Structure formats: C-alpha cells, structure tokens
C-alpha cells in the first residue's frame, strides 16, 4: 500500500530533519526504494533511471525539501509521474471509410497474438462491425487451425489459404473482405524475434502490400528487461499504433508496460485478462501504476476482504443486500472489518481509478468511530428496522452518543439510500459494480455507499488544473 512507501520516505527524511535541511542528495537517496520496486517489477533499468531523475527534478520543483510532509508529497509525485507516463488512455480503434479497416497484430512467439486477434474480433462484432479474421501465421504448426477454431466459437469468418506466402495471403484476404462486405480485417501474424531480419522483412512487405490502418504490438506482461529491445525494434520497423498487454490476469507486476511505453511512446490499447475470448479489457494507467509500484491493488483488496469475511458470511451479506435487508447491525460488522483491514482510507486507495484521486479528498477513520457510536446508541429493534426511528427516538439516540439529532437523521437517511443502491448494484457482476462505481465519477457515491460518511472534497478546479499540468509533461 502507499502507506508502506510513505513510511519509507518518511523514515529517510525523519532521520535527517534533526540535522537540518534535506538536500537534493537526500531526495535522491530516498528514491532507492522506488528504484528497487520498479526493478523488481521488471521495468527496464534505463527507464527506471530516467524515471527516478525526473521524479527528483519534480520533487525539487515541488519544494519537497521544505514540505511538512515530505514523504507523502514524494509518494504523490512518484505515483502521478508513473500514471502520466503510462497514459494517456486510448482504447479506440479507428475506422476508415470506405472500409475495410485493416488491423494487424505482431509480436514475439507465444505472446498471445492469435488469442488477442479473436478477442478483438469479438469486441468489434459487439460494436456492430463485421470483422474478418485472417490466419496469416504460416509458420507455427496448426496456427491456422487454432484461429479457425476460435473463429467458429465466435461465429466470425476466418480467411485462410494453404500457402507459404504471407504477403499473398494478406493481399487476398483484403480483397476477400471487400467482396464480402467485411468492414474490419484483423490480421494474425506469425510470432517472430525482433532480430530475425528475414521475418521482420516479411512484416514490412505485408505492410507495403496492404498498408494496415493500425498495427498493434502484442506483448506478454511477464516480459523482463528485454521488453525494450523487442518493442523498440518492432516500432522502428512497423511504426506501431499501440500495444496490447497480455496475461495480466496473473501476478506479474507488469513493468514491461512502462518500458514499452517509454521506448515506443505508443499507447497501451487493451489488456488481456485471461484465455477466454471475452477477457480483453481497457487499460487504466493508474491501476497499472499502482500494480508496478506494488502498492495497493484489487488483488490485495480482495484478499484482505476474504480474510475478514468467510465465504458463507459474504454470501449471506450479499443476499441481504440484494433484498434490501441490510441492517445497522450488518453495517456495524462491516465497519469493524473495514477497520481490521487497515482503515477506510487505505481501502479506498486500493480501488483502481480512485486511488490516485485520494489526494483530492479527506476520509477519516474517526468518522467511522463517530458513526459506530450512533449505531451503538440504537436499540436492537431500531438497528433492524430504521424506519421506526421517529423524532423522540432520534433525540434519545443522539443523547446516548453525545451528538445532535441531525447527525442521527443524516446517518439514517444515507443508510437508506445506500441500502437502495446496494440492492440495485447486487444485480451486477463484479466488473459491472466497478464500472458503476467509476461512472459515478466524483466521490459522492462513497457517502452513499458508506452510510453517513462525510467526505470533504476539495475544489474540482484544482484537480483539473493538476491534470492539465500533467498532460504537458507527457511524452
């Protein structure tokens, strides 16, 4: 979690504060942890070096040295910088008219090209396109058969030929698409080493013959330091339009994403999250940044939650939510677990897309204690059925916990709202829930989700300004 890094920064700076000012050298030293984290995540060492230099530069500009909380500020700079480097988000596939739009996939052996071709075709079909898959890997045994099988599963036509000439197959496939009204052509190619001049030349010839509108490099997220070499070479020979990162469903930290982005400057378009054909997702720079830093991610969040709730309990809870039968007692239980899991602030940070916005808001664990006090002051019947809480009960509860009746009604009101929301959301899958959370955009939903929780949000303008600044620094 970010706290771990903040603490490390703080311990470096605290050791110094007694002895006067923090110098640039100290800031540099404090980056050692970050450097190790990035190297452990497989970010190329040269990319790491550049990254650390630019963070130090930003830290000097941001006057970390004079800051009251140098550790926190450093973490923020590191995370922002990393997120900026990973972005911008661009998951669009651009179409040409008249069609067909030609999309070509290339990459090393076994990186996931064929599977990704099928995943893309499925995505396009969902968007109302008429894709054509082209089996242009004439090297690997049964490669054509593999794509044909996937095409059948999706009911998407696959163009193939018994041939040794990949350029000819590519050319013929485009003609076939034109004649048959297919508006997107997805070309699967054979895996090849970036230093294989002959096969790299073949890709060049295919490009000359059919001029693909978009060329994506398919890159295995488990790749190590060498990712820079292959990505650079593919980019130089093919002028890539983007990168698709595969096998991110494992526990690889995925530093290759940063390396590849750094050497090619091309956006990461999609990520592969499994072998199944619906497991292709959009890319979230902030999620990736946290993952690479090894701090806070969904996996930990889920694991922590699992430690707190048994499977059975979780299921019971879910059923209650679905039926809108969630009570104040359940609420207490959840708050208790939240605390055991390391505090609400840390929890929120682990939710992708929200973690990086934490700088803009204050959530206080004390707030939870306050809410708990209110609930503790309720009778059993009131906890089970908040509807019976009238003005006189409200006054009694408020007196019991030393708060105002308006505090009590505030809690009851948001509690009811969130009960409604839980009911609505429990119909969705985990991803749907995540999306629903994200689409609600600003953080207000949290006050809905965590009943009565007050979240102070700083002015939105500031946030926008900060983003703009970030953009300028993008490469």
């Amino acid at each position, binding site marked *: 979690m970010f706290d771990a890094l903040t603490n490390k920064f703080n311990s470096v700076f605290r050791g110094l504060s007694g002895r006067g000012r923090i110098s640039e050298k100290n800031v540099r030293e404090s980056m050692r942890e970050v450097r190790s984290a990035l190297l452990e995540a497989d970010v190329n060492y040269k990319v790491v070096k550049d990254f650390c230099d630019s963070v130090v530069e930003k830290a000097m500009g941001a006057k970390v040295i004079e800051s009251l909380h140098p550790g926190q500020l450093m973490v923020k700079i590191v995370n922002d910088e990393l997120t900026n480097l990973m972005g911008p988000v661009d998951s669009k596939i651009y179409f040409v008219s008249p069609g067909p739009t030609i999309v070509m996939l290339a990459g*090393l*052996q076994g990186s996931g090209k064929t599977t990704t071709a099928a995943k893309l075709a499925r995505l396009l079909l969902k968007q109302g396109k008429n894709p054509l898959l082209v089996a242009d890997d004439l090297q690997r*045994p049964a490669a054509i058969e*593999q794509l044909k099988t996937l095409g059948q599963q999706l009911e998407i036509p696959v163009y193939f030929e018994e041939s040794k000439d990949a350029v000819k197959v590519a050319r013929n496939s485009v003609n076939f698409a034109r004649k048959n009204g297919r508006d997107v052509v997805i070309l699967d190619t054979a895996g090849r080493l970036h230093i294989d001049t002959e096969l790299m030349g073949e890709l060049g010839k295919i490009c000359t013959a059919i001029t693909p509108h978009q060329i994506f490099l398919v890159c295995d997220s488990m*790749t190590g*330091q*060498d*990712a820079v070499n292959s990505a650079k070479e593919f980019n130089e020979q093919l002028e890539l339009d983007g990168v698709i990162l595969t096998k991110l469903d494992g*526990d690889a930290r995925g530093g*290759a994403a940063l390396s590849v982005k750094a050497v090619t400057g091309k956006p990461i378009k999609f990520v592969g999250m499994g072998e199944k054909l619906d497991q292709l997702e959009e890319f979230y720079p902030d999620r990736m940044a946290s993952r690479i830093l090894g701090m806070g991610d969904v996996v930990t969040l889920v694991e922590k939650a699992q430690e707190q709730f048994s499977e059975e309990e979780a299921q019971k809870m879910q059923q209650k939510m679905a039926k809108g039968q969630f009570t104040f007692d359940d609420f207490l239980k959840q708050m208790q677990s939240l605390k055991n899991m390391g505090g609400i602030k840390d929890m929120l940070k682990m939710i992708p897309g929200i973690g990086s916005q934490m700088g803009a808001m204050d959530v206080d664990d004390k707030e939870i204690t306050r809410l708990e006090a209110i609930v503790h002051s309720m009778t059993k019947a009131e906890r089970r059925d908040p509807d019976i809480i009238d003005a006189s009960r409200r006054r009694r509860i408020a007196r019991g916990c030393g708060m105002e009746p308006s505090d009590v009604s505030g809690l009851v009101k948001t509690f009811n709202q969130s009960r409604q929301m839980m009911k609505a959301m429990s119909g969705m899958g985990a991803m749907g829930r995540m999306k629903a959370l994200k689409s609600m955009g600003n953080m207000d939903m949290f006050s809905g989700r965590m009943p009565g929780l007050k979240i102070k949000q700083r002015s939105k303008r500031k946030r926008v300004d900060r983003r703009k600044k970030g953009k300028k620094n993008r490469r």
Partner: protein
Amino acid sequence: MAFFSKTLDKLKNGLAKSRKKISDSLTTVLTLGRKIDEELLEELEEKLISDDIGVETTLQIIEDLRAAWKERKISSAEDVVPFLKQELIEYWPQCDRELNFAESGPTVVMVTGVNGSGKTTSIAKLAYLLSSQGKEVVLAACDTFRAAAVEQLSIWSQRTGVQIVKHQQNSDPAAVAFDACEAALARKADVLLVDTAGRLHTQKNLMMELSKIRNVITRKIPDAPHEVLQVLDATTGQNAINQAKMFSEAVDVTGIMLAKLDGTAKGGIVVAIRNQINIPVKFVGLGEKPEDIEPFDPETFVEALFS
C-alpha cells in the same frame, strides 16, 4: 563438444544482429586497466539486472565481488569477469543437468509451464533429441484446452516420427495421461513425453488439475514422472520466480527447459531461480525447429551473460 560451439555461434550471431540493443555490453564497462571501485560495481550491478538476474540475487553477487575485492583477491577490471563466471558456473554442478531415466520401463517426462512459454515445441525438440539417440518415444496430448493444441502436437509427432496418444479437444487431460501411460507400457516405449495446457501459476483450480495429471501418472507407473520440466520463456522477468515456486509446489518440478534463448534476452532469471528455489536448468531452446535444442551448458550460458 559440438553442441557447445553451435550454441555459442547462435548466441554470438544473435548478438551481432542486435547491435541496436539498448543495454551496454560489459566490455565498455570493463575497459582495460580500469581499477575496481564503487562506480564499477554499480555498473556491474546494472549489467546483471539488465540480464533479468533480479535485484536480490544481483546484490548478493555484487557483495561477493566486493568481499573478494576488499580481501584483495581481485583488484582490476580484468579480474571481474573471470571471478563472476567462476562464481556463476558453480551454480550448476554437472550431476543435476542430466535427465533422470527410469531403471526399467518407460521414463515419463511431464512438461509444464505458463501460457505460450514453448511447451509443445520443447516436447517436439525432446522427441527429436531422444529418438535420434535411438529411444522409442510416445507423446501424450494432455493440452485439451487450447484451440488446436492437439493438432499442433500431432503435426510434431508426424514430423519427428514418434507416436502420439490423444483424445478430443476439451476432454479430461488426466484421462489422456492415463491412456498414454498404458500405451507406453504396452508398446514398451522408452520415453513418454506429456504435454500439458499452459496455465498461470495463480490459477488454483488449474494447478490442481496439473497435480491430478501427475497423480494419475504415478498411479499407472510407480516412480513416474521421472522428470517434471518447467518450460520457461527466456524473455520472462521476475515473475518467473513465482512461477517456479508455484509449479514446484503443485507438481514438484525437477528441472527447467529455458526456451527462446535465440533472442536478445539472456534468461538471467534462471540464476535467481537457482539461487532462491534451487531448480536446475536441463535444456535450452534456440529456435522453432526440433533440432534447436541443446543440453544446458553453464559455461556457454554464463559466457553469453557477460558478453
């Protein structure tokens, strides 16, 4: 030995082609007559990290080097490479590089690894190598999951002229293993090579499936599998350590086959794996053809690491 020079040739060729490589070669770090100092150690550290040896193992190696320097065993840059080579070569004693053959009956080699690492191609290479040594080889197509995986292995069985036991796609891989064991016994085969579907080590149910395949094999042929090889893509970074740990836990990996070493990646992660989990490397893969296999040779490997 012939294969050493062939490997070295390939590796050197690879290097010649990759002059555009981003990482510096060691020779620029170790210019003649340069004295050892902290700066040099730092550059060496970067070099080792750029080979995917990983932070932890690299720091250990550098510490050993520093100790030798402080004890005045070495003093100039020219001493560094021989020292490191010696240290690394000792990671892989001769004894644990060979295949463990059954005393009698078929030797079963189970092949595992994450998706796309090169398992099926490595099986084809092993089939080629072993049958060229006069052994009768049978393949078991236990990847019943990936589209056309059975077809892929079937083509390799034809090309290498060995027999194959297969079921339909999506059938139970343990059942294929069972039948393959029976066939190997009935045909008095020397070696049974078991291909399995790629899986990420984080997928608990799929790892359990793998253990089940292993158990079925042991039930049919006691002492089997005699080898469990994990095929590792040489371009893999630090995640390979988790892979090795989890696959070992599930099926007791006995050795690594390091595939795709014909690229620019040096496969330094096997140093970390050796250091942290103690799994030896048995073979290396150097291309997509059946003959592109070599027994692992630490000297050649280390030579390439430092070239």
